[in-house]
């Protein structure tokens, strides 16, 4: 039901550490907004496109993933060209596409688990200060993946119950039972987690 968007491979981007990839994306995301020269933006776009289409992602999948973002960008930039200037819209197109393609390449070359591991590691300094528990990220993440299929089954059951009674399936009559049915398991799940000792009490660590 929830497969990651990454593809297996051994390109330089695959082998690069998650932290480096995210840092490059962050720097690029800020830096490109200070550049308005097409002599920089067009090569950046071509380079990002080159990276995106050599990640091992089949060209068709690659294009299909880009479609929704591309659609929004084109619509908004037609408006910009009309309201501001064609030059500004052109610059924004190459800048946005360079960022979107590079971000897509990072997503395509980073396994979901590696990404979560990296987030957990980045949170460790805050964990030491006692502000968050870094290990909770992984636990919460696992809980989501575990319960999405269950909640989807709840949804189907509520939908079928509507149909059996000849009622129209409406958001209003679906939401409340779906949410109550799901959240009332929270106590049992929390008890199960604590009974297994998945979350160490904080005092243990200070000793």
């Amino acid at each position, binding site marked *: 039901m*929830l497969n990651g968007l990454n593809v297996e491979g051994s390109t330089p981007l695959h082998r690069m550490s998650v932290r480096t990839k995210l840092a490059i994306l962050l720097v690029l995301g800020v830096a490109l907004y200070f550049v308005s020269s097409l002599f920089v933006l067009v090569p950046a776009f071509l380079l990002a496109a080159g990276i995106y289409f050599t990640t091992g992602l089949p060209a068709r999948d690659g294009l299909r993933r880009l479609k929704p973002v591309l659609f929004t960008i084109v619509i908004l930039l037609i408006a910009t060209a009309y*309201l501001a200037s064609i030059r500004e819209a052109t610059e924004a197109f190459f800048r946005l596409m360079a960022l979107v393609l590079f971000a897509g390449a990072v997503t395509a070359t980073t396994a979901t688990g590696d990404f979560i591991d990296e987030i957990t590691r980045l949170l460790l300094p805050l964990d030491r200060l006692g502000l968050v528990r870094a290990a909770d990220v992984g636990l919460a993440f696992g809980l989501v993946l575990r319960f999405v299929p269950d909640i989807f089954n709840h949804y189907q059951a509520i939908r079928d119950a509507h149909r059996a009674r000849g009622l129209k399936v409406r958001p209003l009559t679906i939401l409340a039972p779906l949410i109550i049915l799901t959240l009332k398991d929270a106590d049992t799940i929390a008890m199960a987690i604590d009974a297994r000792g998945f979350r160490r009490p904080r005092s243990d660590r200070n000793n």
Partner: protein
Amino acid sequence: MNTRDLVLVALFTAITVVLGLIPPITLGFIPVPITAQSMGVMLAGCIIGAKRGALAYVLFVLLVAAGLPVLSGGRGGLAIIQGPTGGFILGWIVATYVTGLIAERLVKDGQNDIGQFAAFFIASVVGGIVVLYAIGMPWVSMTTGAPLTDVATGSLAFIPGDLLKAGIAALAARAVLVGYPLLPHRT
């Protein structure tokens, strides 16, 4: 945050993911189909409160960034966040927090039905519409170069649909509060 809070956060994130899997619904008088997922911000704030609601969205945005196709229509990945509407995705976290904060203050025990609905509706409108657009629109303007006033004018088209979502979210939040109350109180 105790384990129960953590579980509630994760379960609400999972509900938000499922809301993205439900086919969008078209309503007679509004041309754009409504995705159930877009009500998630209002629902999270009104049902599990400011802190847990915002954390549920931190987790949701993390799922998007990690490259899971959790957004409606099977979208996901860092490219969406880098795109012109990325501000709305990051804005969800703040929007949920504000929705929750207002709901926690306005919703009280012993309120009549209409008062309670009004409280949830105000929380959903301020958090889920005003705050969200206040973050999302400058981002659109900055990334595309379109003037902010024009972006704001264009966004007006979405307001009727958003008000309707706030109404549905408020009714659903009330039903959940009656059936299984979780919203913390603040005075």
